[in-house]
């Protein structure tokens, strides 16, 4: 495949840096608009952040923005909320359980979806259009309607008459069960996003590889996957975040017992039903947000660098 010339941009200079009308330099309008949007979007987050560092009494008696008036008054701030959340019983094992749920639940759907997206984009088979659109249509299925049938399937299997459609695999409260559930719930979007990306890769690359005699598996593995890193990274971030933040699926399939529960379940139960403990809630929110943000930052470079003119900005 490499021997086949691919229509490529010949001799591309980085005109961007030298072009006279380069908008990157100017654009007060753009900068101001961006700053305004960022500020608007950050206000609620800032509220959560500030609340998480305030004592319960202050949270209930004065607006969070008032803390900004005297940011250096030590009495305004406390780490107590974080301490309470982190030292809660079983925090450590809940954190580990979250990891054990999230990492495979992120990788499994990405792998499965990228194979499927490749097939939907570049392989010929009967029912391709219909199957693909049906898969995307499954986006609309509300999780909540799927939980009970799946749980029943995990505990009893599906039996119609005497015919075992799905065996009783005793998957309830097992990691495998929740991985598969998360993977399946994430698949429609994963396939949709990845097909959009993989399908937009130039056909010339794939065709020339075919001419070179590469089989689909090789093309996929050696060509498509590396080229799709930006899209894969983007989906990985979303899926990681959803699974990590998920409360419902984890609660239903792993249960709420001390040794099984994940971080969100542990934090949710710390807060209790009345939802009055704003300071704990907000601290818990930031604790559970930390890892997804690390993932976001560490994967962000993939989907920016992979596609930008990147390293040579002049």
């Amino acid at each position: 495949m490499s021997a086949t010339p691919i229509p490529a941009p010949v001799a591309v200079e980085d005109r961007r840096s030298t072009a006279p009308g380069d908008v990157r330099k100017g654009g007060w309008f753009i900068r101001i608009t961006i700053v305004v949007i960022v500020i608007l979007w950050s206000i609620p987050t800032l509220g959560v952040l500030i609340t998480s560092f305030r004592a319960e009494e202050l949270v209930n008696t004065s607006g969070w923005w008032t803390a900004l008036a005297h940011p250096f008054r030590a009495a305004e701030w406390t780490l107590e909320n974080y301490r309470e959340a982190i030292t809660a019983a079983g925090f450590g094992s809940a954190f580990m359980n979250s990891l054990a749920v999230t990492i495979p639940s992120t990788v499994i759907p990405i792998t499965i979806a990228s194979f499927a997206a490749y097939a939907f984009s570049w392989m010929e088979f009967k029912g391709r259009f219909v199957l693909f659109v049906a898969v995307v249509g499954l986006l609309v299925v509300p999780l909540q309607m799927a939980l009970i049938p799946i749980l029943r399937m995990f505990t009893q299997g599906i039996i119609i008459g005497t015919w075992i459609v799905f065996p009783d695999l005793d998957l309830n409260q097992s990691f495998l069960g929740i991985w598969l559930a998360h993977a399946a719930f994430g698949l429609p979007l994963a396939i949709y996003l990845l097909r959009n990306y993989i399908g937009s890769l130039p056909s010339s690359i794939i065709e020339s590889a075919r001419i070179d005699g590469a089989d689909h598996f090789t093309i996929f593995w050696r060509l498509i996957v590396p080229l799709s890193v930006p899209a894969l990274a983007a989906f990985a971030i979303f899926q990681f975040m959803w699974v990590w933040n998920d409360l419902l699926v984890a609660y239903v399939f792993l249960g709420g017992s001390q040794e099984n529960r994940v971080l969100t379940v542990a934090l949710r139960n710390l807060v209790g039903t009345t939802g009055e403990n704003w300071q704990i809630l907000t601290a818990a929110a930031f604790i559970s947000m930390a890892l997804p943000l690390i993932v976001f930052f560490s994967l962000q470079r993939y989907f920016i660098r992979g596609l930008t003119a990147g390293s040579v900005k002049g």
Partner: protein
Amino acid sequence: MIGDSPDPALAGSGGRTGERPRQRPLPGVAPGSRRGEGWNVVETTEVRTSGPEPPPGEGEPTPPDERAGRSPRRLVALAIGAAAAVILFPLAFAYLRDPDANRVGVVALAIVVGVGGVFLLFWVLNRTVDFLPARFRETIRPYVFVGPALVLLLVFLVYPVFNTIFISLRNSSSTEFVGLDNYRFVFTDSGMLRSIRNTAGWLVLVPIVAVSTGLAFAVMADRLIRGEAVAKSLIFLPLAISFAGASITWQLIYSYRPQGFGSNVGLLNGIVLGLGQDPVRWLELQPWNNLFLMVIMVWMQTGFAMVVLSAAIKSIPDEIIEAARIDGASELQVFWRIIVPTIIPTIVVVTTYMIINSMKVFDIVFVQPANAEANGTVVMAERMIRWFFQLNHNGRGAAVAVVLFIAVIPVMIWNMRRFREEEAIR
């Protein structure tokens, strides 16, 4: 998989070289200066030769285009791999289920089993196809690629869909067949009708605002010399905050306390009070309260639109845009004539996703400290959840879900059409 992906910038520095000669970089293209995917032959080839390590079980380097299955050694390796999987996986699961097992060990094993298992699955399946007679091979192979996805979807989503349709035709406890009674309820009950109207509002307004803001932001952030990553991260943040976002975040904005119940801790009422006015019950302010709730969803979802659209924008080759500018196109013209047409497939994807998400929205309404029905903020998915879980009427909850399934069909037809068009011009 992400971690295993080769870093294109390092391509060629290590890795297996394979049998074929490596192609030299095209003159004038510096390594690592990747632009649009199709625009870079260099990485394409180098990636191929320095690709990720083959899945476990694959032996020494072999000429890539030799049919892998032909080598007996590979067969043996394959068989051993499969046998090991059959023996080890149940053991691994037994360990994973053991409540006394060490947490770190469980996590490590979970990752190995969960991640390794899928790789192994595809590899084994693909190799199995290689053993088939040649004439079936390429007919079967696509199904091997989509098969695992379809099986998972069938079991975890399609089966529940049929289950939902089934119970939507039955009574509150799913014990008796009631025909279309539940659907009649959906289209006659005043609360339901209200929710249908509201949902229509959600699925028009939220995607429009979220996608256009996300697009505008992505385009503008792309122009920043510095601070792009920070700006984007801050827009992205609300997506990650969902645990609290559902319940608390916007109470810090909308909260209302009447006189005598302490000072107002919601920002909006703080501002209103600062202006010398009486505090407002934002969540009961019909019909604007619907808009206030939509703001929450826009706030959360814009980050998604922005990330996906930004990736698409960055894949537009700079040269095209620069050429247009040199030809004297204004920035707006560049945006409308080049950027938008190029990334329209991605815009469609993001919009579709937003529409479907707006149909499914319930938690934003559900967790508000107000009675949704009395305040006219009900939406369909919220009704569905409430009928199903709180009001103990499975049939009605399921009927609402089925109506949602049907409502998505036009969106799917639109997608199908686009999909065919895209393929036609490829």
